């Protein structure tokens, strides 16, 4: 196998907190402490800044998320607001169409549901908010309204991340109280339907596999855990694997490829690691999947000069992924599992 650095993108002048691919796989968004969002795309053979979204936030932009159709980009900021951006018609320009307020302090993460019906945010104020996206005009033209559908107060500490299930309208969150929680709409209101406890410190990252039946979490306890839903019941999860001894500092982000099934992690040890499930012949006790084995297929130290904050597999192009770090840079990599 091999790992090649496709390109290194400079432009941010402070720590880059988050990178996320557009659903088409052709544009990459990044954001950070310099309060800007940069959109990067290829021109000929060279990756360039296509557009800079600024003036949307007063403080650090901690996270960004694309809507499933790619027409909207949401940004979560330490200024306690979440902005929603929309691309102007027949133009390269993006404009902030709405600023969502309500959290008492720093917004840490934002995510769009796969159905496009919901947007979720979470904050240091210990709450998770679910916003319902109400289409005012019947088309994705920037006229959507956002109505708060629920404020969930199940976490006892700072909530670090929200991630939606890839198929159902089920939300997962994690944070400083060392737990992962899942929420569903029970017809009346959103409720917390599962709490996953096993990590011994802050949980920074969560990622579902393509089926949504498994979930991976990464933590300050330096481990990665794989959780399996029992009989595809989203209220019943068990930890089937703990990957420890691979990272030497907190694991800040995790991405589970829905194309290749590889798991990618990044951490405060400047290292990125690719894991793959071992396919052992299922027999006897192993067939019920109470225990799953994962192996490192690639470990790259010094992927960045400083902490790696974010990783994201390209959703369309197999083997391509992006990373960002405290060293102000964004990198695009190509991972090839086998030498051809």
């Amino acid at each position, binding site marked *: 196998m091999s790992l090649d650095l496709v390109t290194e993108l400079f432009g941010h002048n402070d720590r880059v907190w988050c990178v996320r691919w557009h659903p088409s796989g052709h544009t990459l968004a990044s954001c950070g*402490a310099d309060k800007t969002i940069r959109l990067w795309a290829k021109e000929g053979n060279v990756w360039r800044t296509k557009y800079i979204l600024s003036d949307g936030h007063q*403080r650090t932009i901690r996270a960004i998320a694309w809507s499933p159709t790619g027409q909207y980009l949401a940004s979560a900021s*330490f200024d306690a607001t979440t902005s929603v951006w929309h691309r102007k018609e027949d133009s390269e320009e993006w404009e902030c169409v709405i600023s969502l307020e309500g959290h008492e*302090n720093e917004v840490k993460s934002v995510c769009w549901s796969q159905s496009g019906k919901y947007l979720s945010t979470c904050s*240091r104020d210990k709450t998770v908010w679910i916003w319902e996206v109400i289409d005012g005009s019947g088309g994705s033209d920037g006229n959507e309204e956002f109505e708060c559908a629920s404020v969930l107060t199940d976490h006892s500490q700072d909530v670090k991340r929200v991630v939606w299930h890839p198929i159902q309208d089920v939300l997962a969150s994690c944070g*400083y109280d060392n737990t992962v929680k899942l929420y569903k709409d029970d017809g009346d209101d959103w409720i917390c339907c599962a709490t996953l406890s096993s990590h011994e*410190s802050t949980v920074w990252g969560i990622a579902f596999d393509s089926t949504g039946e498994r979930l991976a979490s990464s933590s*300050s306890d330096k481990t990665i855990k794989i959780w399996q839903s029992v009989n595809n019941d989203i209220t019943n999860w068990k930890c089937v694997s703990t990957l420890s001894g691979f990272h030497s500092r907190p694991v800040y982000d995790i991405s589970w490829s829905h194309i290749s099934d590889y798991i990618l992690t990044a951490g405060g040890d400047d290292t990125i690691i690719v894991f793959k499930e071992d396919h052992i012949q299922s027999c006897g006790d192993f067939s019920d999947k109470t225990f799953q084995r994962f192996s490192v297929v690639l470990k790259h130290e010094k992927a960045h000069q*400083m902490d790696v904050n974010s990783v994201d597999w390209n959703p369309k192009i197999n083997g391509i992924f992006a990373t960002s770090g405290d060293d102000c840079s964004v990198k695009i990599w190509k991972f090839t599992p086998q030498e051809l």
Partner: protein
Amino acid sequence: MDSKLLENSNPKLYLKSEDRQTTTDEEDDRLVDEIDAREVFDLIRGIRDPEHPFTLEQLNVVSEDKCEVDLQRNICSVWFTPTIDHCSMATLIGLSIQVKLIRSLPEHFKIDVYITPGSHATEEAVNKQLADKERVAAALENQHLLEVVNQCLVDSF
């Protein structure tokens, strides 16, 4: 200042350590002068306590033997000892040490600041907060807090 408002109104004071003796090797410009524990201690010994006109060294909050440098992994670790075991200033003191080192050491250095084991009632909670770089980053965007930290760092250079 009304001494009744102070948490520890009569802290024990310790002698200031001698200045570092410059060795002949250090005067030789051809030799690489690696960052060591003494250098880290020299950077933080002059930080002021938030409630006293004394330095962290005078209050024995920091000492050279509780500074460590791992050049292999670029990690600088500091253990500090609050003057009393329920000191509410512990997080602020830890943050000041962290900010001073972030500003002074090469940027690829990873800085870990901990409370000396057994010296504080909420040791674990303070350590967790100091280790959370996201919360530290957010705290340092708070203008008021930054001013308080900078006040502790005045004269420490």
